[in-house]
């Protein structure tokens, strides 16, 4: 095993799967010669050549649309949207077409593709380079949505996504790309789509999150456990659609208290859906309202103000405290 950051882990997954399955092709804006603006696709052009790794014009609907066509023809396209917010230029192709081909043709056609995109904020990037639009996909049935939080799972989930028979939106927390290293085995490892992971067990409160904020959550949890003398269960969702309701429900039925943390705007976000499911399946177990620590219902601000927008350790800690004290 070697220590790898998330960029390296993703690159490994792509390289290994491309070597194994020649149906896999990689394309997007600046992914070939440049190796991607974050270098996730670095070296693929040299190794696999211009037929299987190619740059596209600035054309997001085009990328998703041709990716759909490639998948319909039996290829395994892995395309990149340079920043996930630019997916809004292509949501008609993604949500109305790619997501529905199987359904509208009763399985005659299917779209086994992966759309990768750097996602989320916290890196002092330009406007529109910080979006967290995952909840939008939840309203577009037919898609799966995966958001790894650390290198090892990122690699294993990307493999699962490429092999999945349906379209997967694979969102990569850019804040984690190079900020964190982990043992990532050289040998192939797959982690199933649709399974959340319990990162640490606990009895008094369930903390649910995904993406870059897992780090903030773990910090807050350590402090909370010390300060409040409790044990907290931390769930890393990993797959956002479909949600692993069972893991959530079992944990909350055990702890009776829950905090959900994400960067995306609050209203109709993933936290809302988790709360709705908890309401349906654990109401009588709840000792306190489920708390949300999320982005606010405003556009992601220009970067000088992003620290005030993003959930951070004090906010998470406060939500934990309020939920414990309720």
């Amino acid at each position, binding site marked *: 095993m070697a220590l790898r950051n998330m960029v390296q882990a993703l690159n490994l997954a792509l390289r290994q799967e491309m070597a194994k399955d020649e149906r896999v092709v990689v394309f997007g804006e600046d992914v070939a010669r440049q190796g991607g603006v974050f270098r996730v696709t670095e070296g693929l052009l040299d190794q696999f050549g211009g037929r299987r790794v190619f740059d596209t014009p600035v054309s997001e609907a085009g990328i998703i*649309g*041709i990716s759909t*066509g490639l998948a319909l023809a039996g290829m395994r396209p892995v395309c990149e949207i340079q920043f996930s917010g630019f997916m809004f230029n292509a949501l008609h192709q993604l949500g109305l*077409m790619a997501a529905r081909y199987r359904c509208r*043709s009763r399985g005659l056609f299917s779209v086994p593709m992966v759309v990768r995109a750097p996602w989320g904020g916290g890196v002092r990037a330009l406007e529109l380079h910080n979006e967290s639009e995952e909840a939008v996909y939840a309203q577009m049935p037919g898609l799966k949505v995966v958001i790894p939080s650390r290198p090892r799972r990122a690699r294993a989930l990307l493999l699962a996504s490429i092999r999945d028979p349906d379209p997967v939106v694979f969102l990569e927390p850019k804040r984690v790309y190079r900020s964190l290293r982990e043992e990532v085995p050289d040998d192939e490892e797959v982690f199933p789509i*649709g399974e959340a992971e319990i990162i640490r067990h606990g009895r008094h409160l369930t903390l649910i999150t995904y993406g870059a904020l897992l780090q903030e959550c773990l910090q807050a949890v350590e402090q909370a456990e010390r300060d409040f003398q409790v044990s907290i269960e931390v769930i890393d969702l990993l797959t956002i659609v479909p949600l692993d*309701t069972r893991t959530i429900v079992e944990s909350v039925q055990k702890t009776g208290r829950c905090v959900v943390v994400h960067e995306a705007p609050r209203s109709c976000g993933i936290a809302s859906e988790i709360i709705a499911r908890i309401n349906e399946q654990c109401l009588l177990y709840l000792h306190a309202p489920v708390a949300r620590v999320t982005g606010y219902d405003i556009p992601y601000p220009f970067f000088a103000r992003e620290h005030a927008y993003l959930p951070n350790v004090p906010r998470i800690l406060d939500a934990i405290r309020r939920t414990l004290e309720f």
Partner: protein
Amino acid sequence: MPRQQLAQFHVDYLQILDENGRVDTTLEPPLPEATLWQVHRCMTLARMLDRRMHILQQQGRLGTFPSCYGQEAAGLGCVLALRQDDWLVPCYRENSALLYRGLPLHNLLLFWMGLEEGAYWPRELRVLSIPILIGSQTLHAVGLALASQIRGANEVTMVFFGDGATSEGDFHEACNLAGVYQAPVVFVCVNNQYAISVPRSQQSRSETLAQKAIAYGFPGLVVDGNDVLACYVAAQEAVERARLGRGPTLLECLTYRLGPHTTADDPRRYRSEQERQQWEARDPLKRWRIYLEQRGLWSEQQQAELERELQAEIELAVHQAEQIAAHADPLEMFDFVYAELSPDLLAQRREAAEFLAHSETLSASSVRR
């Protein structure tokens, strides 16, 4: 140094069989007689089907659907140029071409009866689903073509869309990507002069739609879309070019929607009867019949026989479709969303099942109004 001319472009027009059925023999393609007859059959079938579907729609046995009346030649002429392993990406008025390709009639009916079953057709046809989102299919076509290119397969993709579709961003991105990669794809714009109520002149200021190809660095050609021979010859050339790796072509087939946009539309709101009549005089079927007649391939009697045969075919298909509709299980709407349903979706399916147990059957409540 004064202004300098950097580049020159032009757009041509092709017609072989003119409005009066006169053929330009220097351009006439050597199509086998069986094909000529098959063309006649498919155009006639498409037109008869259209009429039958209107009646079914009025009876509430079919939903809103777009008529193909007047446009039977364009798609069919172009599709004659394809091989069986080529991909055909239709729009929603390509009935004659789809039938030529072998699409079972009842599939078409089921589709407009509001059943996904209508979109499940034989895989070996290599025909993509009928698109509803205007322009979207052009990108899928480029993807299919790229797949052939990447694999080194020798297949060509042909995609159909309307004059209105050329205004969508998707069309633009499709053409641009196809140009950049020199993808083996033929773009066929069936310019029927209207996008619902908006006339071609207000869809774009360009003199022709074919010249839009200049923006992407590949050839464009205007074709008489009511002339099967011209469509075939133009498509043949474009398919050949694509197959040889020389990239895409844009064909603009000039035709006219003689009927309403869909059964929900009233064309009198936006166009004159006189205009319609002018185009009716250019009816592709009339023209084709004269051509066959000149070649001794058509008689009144043959026509009568053909129509009887096709009528029976249509009735059979209507029957088949209604049988399938009557037994369609509403719950199956869950079954093809993903290859495998998540536990939560399975639970939703059970939830739906509970309520359907009480409610009326599908055919009674919904397929008939």
